């Protein structure tokens, strides 16, 4: 099993949905898509070994992966949606404000752009209180955190983990809890978090300085904007945006626990 299968506790969520021990998910014979992307579903730099199954979120991603020579993709839907099935909404808590995910990059990537300018734009746009959700390395950076703390509440969902170590296995659980507290979810780039937010009942929006990475080209960003205009802008139509987000997460294609176990090569408990 590739260690990326454990990122964000994905394998753990799948095991929980399948009725298996969520603390010790069985080995997955293949690669789980661990984040939304416009490629073959695998993360950047994943050492894909030819012939191994890939478990992707949506049929569209499967088609794209096939066209890129990935012949062994199976659509499972996003683990986050399985989490939603495990913990259906009870609508007990009132929602307030916006949860905002400033684009962060990964470890080793450095965002070029002004955090402060972005914060100002966010505060000008958002109608209610804003919770900033920072990625772990930005959250641990006192300077960045302090800047966001001046503008609102600052949180992190945890460390996604690396090579099976230090994984916050309840990353998605934490994220779901936070999303359900907010009316809106927003980011300066279309990402998994925005789609998760839409799936969890928040009105999605993508706006603001996209904070490009050093040396990053804009072709993909422009392509994303063209393909999913329903999610872009400060106040897109929530129904249309949610529909698009659910399609990208594979909401129509979720398997039942028994089928998912068989797909992942897991035995019944």
């Amino acid at each position: 099993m590739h260690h990326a299968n454990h990122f964000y506790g994905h394998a753990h969520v799948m095991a929980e949905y399948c009725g298996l021990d969520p603390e010790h998910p069985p080995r997955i014979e293949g690669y789980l898509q661990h984040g939304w992307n416009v490629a073959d579903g695998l993360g950047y730099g994943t050492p894909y070994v030819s012939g191994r199954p890939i478990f992707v979120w949506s049929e569209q991603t499967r088609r794209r992966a096939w066209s890129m020579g990935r012949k062994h993709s199976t659509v499972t839907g996003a683990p986050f949606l399985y989490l939603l099935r495990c913990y259906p909404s009870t609508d007990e808590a009132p929602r307030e404000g916006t949860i905002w995910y400033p684009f962060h990059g990964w470890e080793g990537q450095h965002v070029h752009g002004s955090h402060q300018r972005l914060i100002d734009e966010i505060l000008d746009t958002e109608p209610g209180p804003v919770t900033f959700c920072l990625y772990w390395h930005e959250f641990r950076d006192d300077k960045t955190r302090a800047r966001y703390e001046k503008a609102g509440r600052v949180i992190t969902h945890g460390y996604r983990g690396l090579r099976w170590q230090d994984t916050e296995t309840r990353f998605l659980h934490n994220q779901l809890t936070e999303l359900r507290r907010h009316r809106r979810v927003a980011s300066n780039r279309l990402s998994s978090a925005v789609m998760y937010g839409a799936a969890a009942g928040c009105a999605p929006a993508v706006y603001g300085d996209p904070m490009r990475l050093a040396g990053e080209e804009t072709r993909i960003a422009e392509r994303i904007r063209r393909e999913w205009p329903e999610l872009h802008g400060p106040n897109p139509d929530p129904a249309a945006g949610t529909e698009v987000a659910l399609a990208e997460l594979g909401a129509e294609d979720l398997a039942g626990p028994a089928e998912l176990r068989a797909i992942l090569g897991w035995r019944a408990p």
Partner: protein
Amino acid sequence: MTDLKMIGGEMPDWSDRRADERPPAGGAVFAEILRRMAPAGGRILVAGPHDDALIDALGSRTEVVCLLRSETDAAALAERGVTVLCGTLAKVTDADRYDVVVALDGVDRLCSVEGPQLDWAEAVQVLRRALRPGGSLLLAVENELGVHRLVDRSAPTSAHGPGDWRPVGEFDEAKPGNPTRLAGRLAADGLAVSWLAAAWPLPSAPTLLATPYALQDGPVGALSAAAAGAAGTAYAGVPVLSDPRRLAAAAVRGGLGAEFAASWIVLAHRAPRPALDFVPPPVLLGDGPVVELAHDRDGGWVRKVVSGTTTPGRDTTRLNGPLPTGRLLEELLLAACLRHELRTARRLLSGWATWFGTLAADSQGSATVDNVLVDGDAYALLDPSRLGTSPGPATALRRFAETLLAGGYAHPWASATNVDSLTAVLAGAAGVQHVPAVESAPVPIPDSQREHEEQLRMLREQLADATTRAAWFEAELSGRDSELRRARLQIKAFSGKFSYRVAKLGAVSARKARNALRRVGKES
């Protein structure tokens, strides 16, 4: 008249009933037509090799005369008390006229090696001349582009056996190539067609006859399923180029059922008007019991068992009544798989599994996906007469998994690459809990070269992938080995006592010094 009359051109050391040759025309469907059309007090000429059961079906009310080129076959038939003309077709004169001429074996085995070799049109003209005015000709015409030919691994124009002294195949240009031309050609010869049907799956013993009208506007779902099923039975374990079940189903579904049939059976009469008051039904099915399909008053189709009511293993009473509507579950599932429509596949599978549980135990064995019609949410057995219990729905799912994998079909569960894992996935999708581990041998299916090629291609890919993976594992392993070595050294260095570490350091230094001295010694 004696029972056996030599007319000239007969073949003394020949038989058209050899195991390596095409069997004579036969089967329950042909027998049913002959049983119903034999005119009381009339005369019938049966031209060419026909199964004994067909001769018997004509009954005793009619005077039957058979025409055979083989002396051996003719003598054997005469022994059974049948009047036989033995010789070649060209020797048949119009001195004797008949009310009905039957040539269900076609016309290519009517001429012997002796004398002129008549082409299709000439042969039909001889048969026509043998008819009384108003007399009827019941003729089978093999379709040179029928599915049976398309899947044949041998060429009809290659001379294989001693019977192929003139293997003309599709090069007999006098022979019509589609039902419309057939009717036109007969009309030009003064024969008016009163009924024409496409025959599936083999010319010699079709088990499905359907008129072009029924194939076009009739119960297409059931007919395409029946054509595929008939092909599946006829070609079980038979080497073919490609799977005739899919070609048959696609042809019927696509409105080409008549064009791609194995043969056409035509009933035509000589002017002025038919003396025979008989037209066969629009559809006849007969893989045991013979079933007739007809329009009912409401525009639906009803089926009625007309013979073979005591077929073993079948409860033929279940066949009487309305024909279920809809499409074959297997085709719908294959289509959903090819389109990667998981939702549709799951809906079909779970709907089927739920319905399966409501069936009587003796119907469950036949509720496989290739015998179930689906119309919306309604599931029904295409052939409800087959009796058999089943260990459970997983058995039928395993058969479908075999179909998907053996047929090389694209499907949405790419991670399931063998029958066991795919059966488990299908069972999960269907909501079937119990998946027995041990199963009986796979049901024989057409042995298709195209599917073999697909499997070969898949195996090559798997082998290449496995080789890549092995190399990747080796690289990973050596990386981990280095990591382990480093970790062990560190553990040793940091876990040992101080005196041990000093001694170890001393030993390493001493070894280095000794090696240095040895090198110096060698150099000097």
